C-alpha cells in the first residue's frame, strides 16, 4: 500500500498514551488533585485525633449507615471506607469531572488542539487517547484515595475486620475484597460524570464550563432524586443508584442495586461518549 504520509508517520502511533500521560502529569491541577487524594485521609485522621468526641450517639437503626462515622476508627478498612463514603458524593465527582472535562477543552483554550489535529492526530484517536488517559487518572485518584486511607488507617488504628452496624463483621481478608468491590462500583458510577464531563469538554472551549457543567448536572440529578413525588422517573436519573455500594457492606452482599446502577452508569456513559465522538469527528475546530 502506498501511503500519502511522510516518512515515519503512522496514524496509530500519533499521540501515544505515554505522551498524553506526560502532558497531563506536568499540569499543576493534576498534581494538586492527586495530592489532595492523599491529603484528605490525613485531614480526616487528624480531625479524628484532635477533634472533640461525637455527641450524637443516639443514632437509630434506620440510619445505620450514618454510623459509618462511629466505626471509622475501628480499623484501617473502616477508615478507608469512611474516607470513600465522605468523598463519593462530591469530591470524587469533582475530581473525575476535572480529569475528563478539562482534557479537551483546555487544549482548545490554549490553542494547542488545532496543532495536534494538524500534526495530524486523527480526531478519533485524539479523543480516544484523551479519554483513556483521563479515565486512568480518575481511577488512579480513586485508588490513591483508598490506598492512602487504608494505609494511614491501618497504621493508626490497626488491621481489623470490616464492621458495620447492620451485618456481621467481615473478616479482614474478605473486607479487602468488599472494599475493592466498592471501589469498583464507585468507579463505574463515576463513569456517568466522566461521560458527561467529556461530552461537555468536546462541546465547549471553556474547561471550567465543562467541569462545572458536569458537576452542576450531577448535583441537579441528585436533588431531583430526593423528590419522591417523581416516582418511577427517579429510577432513570443517573445518580439514583449512586449509594448502592452501601449494599456491599451487608452479608451476603446485596448486589441487585449495584447491578442496576452499573447498567444505568454504563448506558449513560456510552451515550455521552458516543455523542462526544460523533460531535468531535464532525465539528469545525474554531478555537
Amino acid at each position, binding site marked *: *500500500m*502506498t501511503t*500519502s*504520509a*511522510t516518512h515515519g*508517520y*503512522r*496514524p496509530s502511533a*500519533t*499521540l*501515544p498514551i505515554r*505522551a498524553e500521560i*506526560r502532558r497531563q502529569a*506536568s*499540569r499543576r491541577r493534576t498534581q494538586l488533585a492527586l495530592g489532595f487524594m492523599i491529603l484528605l485521609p490525613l485531614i480526616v485522621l487528624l480531625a479524628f485525633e484532635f477533634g472533640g468526641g461525637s455527641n450524637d450517639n443516639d443514632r*437509630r*437503626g*434506620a440510619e*445505620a449507615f450514618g454510623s459509618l462515622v462511629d466505626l471509622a476508627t475501628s480499623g484501617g478498612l473502616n477508615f478507608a471506607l469512611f474516607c470513600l463514603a465522605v468523598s463519593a458524593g462530591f469530591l470524587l465527582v469533582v475530581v473525575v469531572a476535572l480529569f475528563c472535562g478539562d482534557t479537551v477543552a483546555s487544549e482548545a483554550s*490554549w*490553542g*494547542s488542539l*488545532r*496543532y*495536534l*489535529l*494538524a*500534526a*495530524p*492526530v486523527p*480526531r478519533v484517536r485524539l479523543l480516544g487517547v484523551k479519554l483513556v488517559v483521563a479515565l486512568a487518572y480518575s481511577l488512579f485518584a480513586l485508588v490513591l484515595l483508598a490506598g492512602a486511607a487504608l494505609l494511614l488507617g491501618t497504621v493508626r488504628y490497626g488491621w481489623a475486620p470490616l*464492621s458495620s*452496624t*447492620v*451485618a*456481621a*463483621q467481615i473478616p479482614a481478608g474478605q473486607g479487602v475484597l468488599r472494599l475493592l468491590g466498592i471501589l469498583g462500583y464507585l468507579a463505574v458510577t463515576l463513569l456517568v460524570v466522566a461521560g458527561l464531563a467529556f461530552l461537555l469538554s468536546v462541546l465547549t472551549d471553556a474547561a471550567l464550563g465543562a467541569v462545572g457543567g458536569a458537576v452542576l448536572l450531577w448535583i441537579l440529578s441528585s436533588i431531583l432524586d430526593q423528590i419522591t413525588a417523581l*416516582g418511577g*422517573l427517579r429510577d432513570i436519573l443517573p445518580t439514583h443508584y449512586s*449509594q*448502592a*455500594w*452501601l*449494599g456491599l*457492606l*451487608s*452479608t*451476603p452482599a*446485596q448486589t*441487585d*442495586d449495584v*447491578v442496576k446502577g452499573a*447498567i444505568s452508569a*454504563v*448506558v449513560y456513559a*456510552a451515550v455521552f461518549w458516543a455523542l462526544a465522538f460523533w460531535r468531535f469527528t*464532525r465539528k*469545525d*475546530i*474554531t478555537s
Partner: protein
Amino acid sequence: MPALPARLRRVLPRVTRRRILAASAVVLLLAVVVGVAVWPDRPAWTSTDARITVRTGPDDTDRVDLSTRFYLPRDRSGKVPAILLAHGFGGTMDSVRDDAEDLAARGYAVLTWTAQGFGTSTGQIHLDSPDWEVKDAQRLLDWLAARPEVRTDADGDPRVGVIGGSYGGALALLLAAQDRRVDAIVPMITWNDLARSFLPQSADVAATGVFKKSWAGLFFGSTAAGPDPAGGNPACGRLAADVCSAYLATATSGTADDVALRLFRRSSPAAVLDRISAPTLLVQGEVDTLFPLSEADANARGIAATGTPVRVAWYTGGHDGGDGPQTDQDRIHFLIDQWFGHYLKGTGAAPADSFTYSRVAGFSALDRGLVTNAYSRPAYPGLTGTGSAAVAVRGPAQEIASPPNGNPGALSSLPGISSGLSGLLDGATRDVPGQFAAYQSAPLTAAVDVAGAPVIRLRAASATGTATLFVKLYDVGPDGAATLSSGLVAPVRLTGLPSDLGDAQPVTVTLPAIVRRLDAGHTVRIVVATSDQAYFAPARPATYTVAVEPRVTLPTVVGTPIADPQTVWRYVLAAVVAAILLGLLVTLLVRGRRLRRREHRALPEYADTPLVVRGLRKAYADGFVAVEEIGFTVERGQVVGLLGPNGAGKTTTLRVLMGLTMPTAGDALVFGHRLEPGSPVLSRVGALVEGPGFLPHLSGYENLRAYWRATGRPESDARFAEALEIAGLGDSVHRRTKNYSHGMRQRLAIAQAMLGMPELLVLDEPTDGLDPPQIAEMRRVLRRYATDGRAVLVSSHLLAEVEQTCTHAVVVNKGRIVASGPVEEIVGESPSVTIEVSDVPEASRVLSGLDVRSVTPEGPSSLVVDMNGTPRADVVASLVRAGVGVDRVVPRRRLEDAFLALVGDNSRGSGDR
C-alpha cells in the same frame, strides 16, 4: 412572523433548521417520558358496592346488614372463579382494596365485605364465631353462587377461594372447615388457638400461660373506640356481650376461666382443622409477637393430618413487621397466584408442597428498608428444623426479683407502634437489673442458620410456688450488642414449684421460632427475666431462683436460595456491555475500511504539487458564507502569499487546509491527496494558523518536544536544532511559555511548524508581533525554506510583507480570488507614476499632449499618470521643456497600488473571517 427586536435576536441563539429539529426531538422525547410516567392506567376491573342482608346467628334468625364490594375483571371470557377476601381485625373492606383490585385484575371475581361489628356493617363482633361471622361468609358464598359472572361447581356451589390476614385468615380456616364449598384457602398471619395466643405457655406444663396484655388490649380495645350504636356497655363497644365479658375477666385476673377458654376455643381453628379439605396455603410472619410461627405450624400439622394439601411460607413481616420487604411481598404474591391459579382456575401444575422462608440480609442501601434473602426446602420441616446445633451456655443459678405489677418491666416488643422492620434489628430491648439471669455461650466457631424454635431446659424455685418467667435468646455480636430476634420472648408460668432449687424438676421451654443466622464470633445469651411490659404480671412481689441447663438446642435449616428475579439484571448488564463493545468494534472496523479506501483515492496528476485548492466554499450553519469560491495552486519552490484584507476568508481557507474545518464545497489537494480532517498527508504540512498554541506550563523546548511526541514520528526526524535556531529564543527556550512575549511565542510557533522540515509550510500572519530585524530575518528564512522542492504558503494582510517575501501572490477579497500569479506580474499591471510638479494645470496640459492613457491630479502638487508604455524620461523631458518644474517622479510599482486597484478602496470585509 414579525421580526424579533434586534437586541433580542442578538441574545438568542440563531434559529436554524437543524436547531429547530434538535429542539423538537428533545421536547418530544421529554413529553413521551413524562406522559408515560403520569398517564393513568385504565383499571382492569370494575366494582360495585352493595349492602347484603344475611340471616345469621345460632338460629339463623338474626339479620345483619353487611356492606360489600364486588370486583369483576374487565376483560373476561365466560364465568370466572371467585375469591372471598376478608379483612383484618379493626379494618373494613376498604383496607383490602389494593389486594382486591390486584386479584380482580388477575381474573377473579372478588367479593370483599366489612365483617359484622365493623365499619358500616351492622351486628356485633363475635370473634369469627362459627354461628356469626362464619355463617355470614356462608351466606356470601350463596350470594356468589347466584351471580351470573361466577363459575360454579354445582348448583349453589361457586368455585371460590378464601383469603385473608389475621382475623380474616382465621375466618378462611373456620369457613373452610364449616363449608365444603370452599375450594382453596390462603390464611395469613393468623391463629390456631386464640387461647394460646393470648395466654401463651412455652413450658411443657399444664398450667395456662401468661396473659399477653398489650396485644390483647389493642385487639379488644380498638373496638371500644366506636360505641355500640345499639347503646350497650361503653366498655365493650361493638363487642358481643360474651366476648366482652370473657376479655374483661381475663384481663382482670391474668388467667382465663373456663367460660373464656371455651369462647376462645370456639373461635379457634384448632378444633376443626380435620374438617378442612380445601388446599391450604399458610402464610405466617417471622416478625409477629401476636401470632408467632408456632400458630401456623399447628395449623399446618392439623390440616395435613387428613391429607389435605398444605403449603407453608414464612416471610419477614407480620403483626410487628408489617408487609415486609418487596422481595418477600413478591414471593408471597407469586405463591398465592400459583395456589389460586391451580385450585381455582385450573391453570398450572399442582403447586409443590415445598416450604419457603426468608432471612434478613441487611439494610437496603437505597430506601433504607430491610433486605431479605429467600430460601426453599422441598418439604416443610416444622419448627424443629432439619438439623440442630447444640450450644453450651454457662451461668450460675441466680435469684431474681419479680417486681410488683411487673413494674419496672423489661421491654421486648412494642405492639401496635412498630414503625416497620428496621426498629427490630436495632434492639429496642431492655432488661431491668436484678430481674434477670443471663447465661452466655462461648463465641460460635461457625455460623449457625437457625430456623425454628430453640429449646432449653430450666429449673425454677419460688417461695410462693408459682413463677412467671420470660425466656429470651439474644444474639450477641463481638462488640457486645445484643439483639432479640423479632422481639420474641417465651413466657412461662410455672406452678407447684418447690422453694428450694435443689428440689426443682427441670422443665423444657420451647422458645419462639426465629429465622436468623448466628454468625461466627457471635455468642448466644439466654436471659430469664421476671417481667415483660407486653405481658400480665403478678401484683405481689416475689423472688425466684432459676438455673438454666447448659444445653441450648438450636434447630437449623439449610435452604436452597431462591433465585432472586432481580438477578436477571446481571444478564442485562452483561448484554449491555457486550452490545456496547460490539458496537464499538463494528464502528472501528467500518471506519478502518473507509480510511483505507480513502488512502488509495489519490489524484496522480497532482502527486507532485504541494497544494491545489479547487472551488473551495465554506458556509457556516448560520448561513454566513466565509469563502465564496477560492482556487489556487502552490508549486514546489514557490513562496505564495495569500493576500487580503481582514475578513477576506484567508484564515478560513487555511483552517480547511489544516483539516480543522470541513469545506461546504470544493476541496484542497496536498500532493494529490484530498485533505480531510486527520488526513495522513497532513504530516507533510507544517502549520501556524491563528496564532501560537502552547501548553503554558511547559517551557518552549518542552512544548516542541511534546508536540513532536504527539506526531509519533521518530525523534531523529524532528531536527530540533534547526528549528530552535530559527526560533532564536536563546536561553529563553527553557522558560515557561506563559511568560513569553507575543513575538517569542510567534517565533516558537514558526519553529514548531518547521519541525521535521515539512514539504509544505503554511503560515498565517507569520510576522505578527515580530520587530523589524526579525521580520527581515524571517523573510530570508522563508525564501531559503522554499528551496529543495519545498513550498511555503503565507497569509498576510500586510502588502509590503507579501511583496518582499513571496514569489507568488493570491489576492482574496470577500471570499473570492481577485488576482493571482507571480508577484512581479501582479505588480506590473500597474503602469503609472506619481509626478510632483511645480505647476499642475500646465503639467496636465503638457501631459495630455503626450501618448499617455490618463492624467489624474492628486493633491495640490502631484499627478498620477498612467504612462501607457511611454518612457518616463520622455515625460520628464517634455515637462521640463515646457518649463514645468519636476520635483519627484515616483514609479508606482508597489503592490499596494495593485492591491487597491484589484480590491477597490473598500478594504473592509464583510465580517470576521
